[in-house]
């Protein structure tokens, strides 16, 4: 959920853009991390690793919990990767492959 009013902060957002997650069209603000936009849309499960769901954790590109497939490229750290219009974001299953796409 987005915070509409805050007692101390005023948020500066980029323009609203559309992207897809698992084929579903979602909206977010341009430039915010992909993980933030997903979270604002209620998406908490970002990846499946060793058969278990994984999500956001460190928010500074450090922990590898949030690796996703973005525009066909696997292992993107979505907690630090800025959102752009038209991005195709997919849940990543397993480790990414150098040959493109995620290993199945």
């Amino acid at each position, binding site marked *: 959920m987005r915070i509409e*009013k*805050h*007692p*101390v902060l005023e948020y500066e957002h980029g323009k609203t853009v559309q992207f897809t997650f698992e084929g579903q069209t979602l909206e977010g603000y341009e430039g915010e991390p992909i993980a933030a936009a997903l979270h604002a849309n209620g998406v908490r499960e970002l990846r499946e690793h060793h058969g278990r769901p994984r999500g956001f954790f460190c928010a500074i590109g450090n922990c590898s919990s949030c690796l996703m497939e973005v525009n066909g490229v696997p292992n993107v750290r979505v907690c630090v990767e800025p959102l752009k219009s038209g991005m195709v974001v997919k849940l990543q299953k397993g480790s990414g492959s150098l040959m493109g796409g995620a290993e199945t």
Partner: protein
Amino acid sequence: MSGTLDSTGIASREMFEKLLPSAQRRAKGPYVVMECYEEIPCNPCSTSCAFHAVKMEALNKCPGVDYDACTGCGSCVSRCPGLACFVINETVGDGKIDITIPYEMLPVPQKGDIVDALGRDGFVVGKAEIVRVLSGPKMDHTNVITMRVDASLLYDARSIRV
């Protein structure tokens, strides 16, 4: 009783009463109570006081208030990073007192509002009438709110729920 504060985050009545000025001073008008019981490296209360009423032996000591100099103006209330300064005025009469608190939540109450007064554990201890609201750029989002409560809530009332 510091064990209590250490494990609960709540200062005991005894700890609070030790901070109070003389009965004579309390009867004279508003005064600050600095509920800063732990020695931490911090001194904006002292440096922000226009009346030089807050004495600190060293950066890591607790503040001491010179109640002859303190006017109860409340400028420290919005400057204290620990939100630990409160101004008390026991001279309003009618069995009531005014307690001035720092407040950084939404919504900010308006003068005249009747709200819940909260105790040190967040439970409702009574009703509070908001008698003054100071906000604006100078406070930098730490609003300074004065609530009027029953005099019996001198120790208890420390927050509000709007």
